[in-house]
C-alpha cells in the first residue's frame, strides 16, 4: 500500500466532499424548512460559476470575481424564489420536481444563449495555480487546499449560525416544525426568501470553486445535483450536520472507488473489464449506500428531531 497516494486520495475525497457539502447545505435547508424539492439548485451552482467567470474576466481578479459573484447569485436566488418558487409552496413534491425540471431547461438554454455553448475558463492567480510538496515526493494543488479550507470554514460558520443565533434557531425550528415558527410571529415569507438566497449563494460558491478546475459549462449542475440529493437523503433532510457527514462519506467513497477499485477488481476479472467497470461501480457505490441507509433508517442518518 502506498500511503502517500492514499493520503493524497483522501484529500481529493475530502475536496469533493466539501464541494458536495456546499451544494447540499442550501438544498437541505430549503428542503427541510420549506418542504420544497429543488432540482434546479444545480442551475444556481452553474450560474455562480458563470457569474464568477464573467466577473473574473472583467476585473482580472479571481478573489474580486468571487466576492462580487456571491451576492449576485444570492440575488438571483432571491428573484427565483419570488417569481417561481413562492407559487409552488402550496403544491406537492411531484409538482416541485416538474417545475424545477422546467427551470433547469430554462437556465441551461439561457446560458447557452447568453454565453454560448463553449463554456468559460476561470484563470487563477499564480499563487493558487501552483502546488505544494508533501512528504514522499507527493504534491497537492494549492487551489484544492483552498477549496477544502473554504468548505470547512463555511461548514463551521453554518454550524455556529444554526446553533447559536436567532436566525439559526428559527431555521432549526422551521426544519422540525413549520407551524411553530409561524406561531412565533415570524414573517415566514421573509425567512424562506432569506434561506433560499443563502442556499443559492452557497451553491454558487461551489460552482465558483470548481470552475477554475473544470471550467463553467452548461448543464454542469445537472448530474452533481443528483449526488447532492443523495447526500441530503443520507444525511437526513433538514440537517446541516447530516449533510456534512454524508457529503464527506460520498466524496470519499467516490474518490476512493475511482482510485483503488480497479486494482481490487483486477483480482476477479481481466484488467480491461476492471478498468471499464471500476468507474461505473464506484459511481454506483453511493447509490447503494443510499439505498442501504434508507432501508435501515428511512429518515436518513441525522433526521431533525421532531417532524
Amino acid at each position, binding site marked *: 500500500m502506498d500511503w502517500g497516494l492514499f493520503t493524497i486520495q483522501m484529500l481529493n475525497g475530502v475536496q469533493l466532499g466539501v464541494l458536495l457539502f456546499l451544494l447540499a447545505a442550501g438544498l437541505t435547508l430549503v*428542503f427541510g424548512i420549506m418542504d420544497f*424539492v429543488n432540482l434546479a439548485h444545480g442551475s444556481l451552482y452553474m450560474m455562480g460559476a458563470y457569474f464568477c467567470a464573467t466577473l473574473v474576466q472583467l476585473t482580472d481578479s479571481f478573489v474580486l470575481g468571487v466576492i462580487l459573484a456571491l451576492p449576485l447569485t444570492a440575488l438571483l436566488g432571491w428573484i427565483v424564489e419570488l417569481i*417561481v418558487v413562492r*407559487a*409552488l409552496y402550496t*403544491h406537492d*413534491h*411531484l*409538482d416541485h*420536481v*416538474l*417545475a424545477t*425540471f*422546467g*427551470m*433547469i*431547461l*430554462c437556465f*441551461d*438554454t*439561457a446560458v*447557452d*444563449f447568453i454565453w454560448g455553448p463553449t463554456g468559460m475558463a476561470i484563470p487563477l492567480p499564480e499563487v493558487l495555480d501552483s502546488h505544494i510538496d508533501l512528504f514522499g515526493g507527493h504534491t497537492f494543488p494549492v487551489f484544492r487546499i483552498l477549496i477544502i479550507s473554504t468548505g470547512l470554514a463555511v461548514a463551521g460558520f453554518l454550524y455556529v449560525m444554526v446553533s447559536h443565533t436567532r436566525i439559526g434557531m428559527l431555521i432549526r425550528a422551521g426544519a422540525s416544525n413549520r407551524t411553530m415558527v409561524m406561531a412565533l410571529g415570524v414573517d415566514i415569507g421573509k425567512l424562506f426568501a432569506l434561506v433560499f438566497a443563502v442556499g443559492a449563494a452557497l451553491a454558487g460558491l461551489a460552482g465558483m470553486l470548481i470552475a477554475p478546475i473544470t471550467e463553467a459549462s452548461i448543464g454542469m449542475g*445537472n448530474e452533481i445535483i*443528483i449526488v447532492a*440529493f*443523495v447526500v441530503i*437523503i443520507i444525511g437526513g*433532510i433538514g440537517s446541516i450536520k447530516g449533510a456534512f457527514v454524508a457529503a464527506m462519506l460520498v466524496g470519499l467513497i467516490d474518490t476512493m472507488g475511482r482510485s483503488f477499485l480497479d486494482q481490487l477488481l483486477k483480482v476477479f476479472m481481466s484488467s*480491461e*473489464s476492471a478498468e*471499464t*467497470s471500476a468507474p*461505473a*461501480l464506484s*459511481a*454506483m457505490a453511493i*447509490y*447503494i449506500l*443510499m*439505498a442501504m441507509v*434508507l*432501508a435501515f433508517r*428511512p*429518515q436518513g442518518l441525522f433526521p431533525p428531531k421532531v417532524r
Partner: protein
Amino acid sequence: MTSLFRTGLPAFVMVAGLGFLALLPVLAEWVDNIFLIDLFMRLMILSIAAVGLNLILGYGGMVSFGHAAYLVIGAYAVGIPAYYDIYDGFLQFAIAIVASAAVALVTGAIALRTKGVYFIMITMAFAQMVYFTFVSIEEYGADDGLTINMRSEFAGLLDIEDNFTLYYFVLVSLIAVLGLVYRIVHSRFGMVISGAKGNERRMQAIGFPTYRYRLVCYVISGAICGYAGALLGNFTNFITPEMGDWVHSGELIFMVVLGGAGSLFGPVLGTAVFILLEEYLSRLTQYWHFPFGAMLILVVIFTRGGINGMFRWLGMKSGIGGRS
C-alpha cells in the same frame, strides 16, 4: 358520477384518435414522409411506458422517479439475446417482462418502505444502479450502446422487421395495455390501490395489507415499462444505458402529469403533446428547451392535473381524458 375512473373521452374522439393512428402509415406514404411512422411509433411506445407509470403514479400515488430503468431492462432483454444471435421474440419479450418484474419486486420491496420524497429519491437511486450496471458491462457495449442487427422473430407468425408491421404491433400493444390498465384500475385490486393513495393508514385500519398490494402494483407497472422497453429496442435497433438516465424518468413523469395523472388516456395525450412539441420546437430554434421549460413551469403553477386541469382552469367544464 358514480364511477371514479371515467375515461371522460367521448366515444367518437377515442375512435377518431385510434382511427388516426391506424391510418397513419397510409397517410405517411401518401404525403411521402415515412418518417411520420417512426415519430408516431416512438410516441406510442413511450405512451405504453407512460400508461405503465401512470398505474402507480396516477392511480396509486407512488411517484417513481426511476421508471426509465425498466425501459432499459426491456431493451437489453432484446439486445443481449440478439447479441448472441437469438432473435426469438417470445423469449425476448418474456425476458423483458420477467426481468423488469423481478427488478421491480426487489427494488419495490425496499422502496415502498419509504414515503414521499424519500420514495422519489430511492426509486431514482435504484434506476441509477441499473444504469451504471449496464454502463459497466463492457461486453454489451457499456456506454457506447449495443446495435441490434435484427428485430424479434415470432416463429413465422409475425415479421416485425418491416416498419409497417412493427407499427401495427405497437398499436395493438398500446390498445392491449390500455385495456389491461382499464381492467386493473376498475377491479378490486385497483380499488385497494386508489384507496391506499387516498389514505393508506385508513386502508390498513379497515384490514388491507396495503404494502403487498402496492408492491404488486409496482411490479405490474415495471413489467409494462419493460414491455415498452422491448418494443423500444426493436424500434430503434440501437440501445444504450443512457435510455435509463434520470432525465428520462423525469420526462416519463412529465408525460403522465402533462396529460393528467390518474386518467386512462391522459398519459397517451401527454406523451403525444411532449413528443410533438419536442419535434416541432426543436425544429424552430436550437433554444427550444426554454419555451418548453417555461411551459412546464406554467402548467405546474397554474393547473393541477395537467392538460386536463388546464382546460378546466380555462373554464371548460369537462376535462378531457380524465375524471372531472
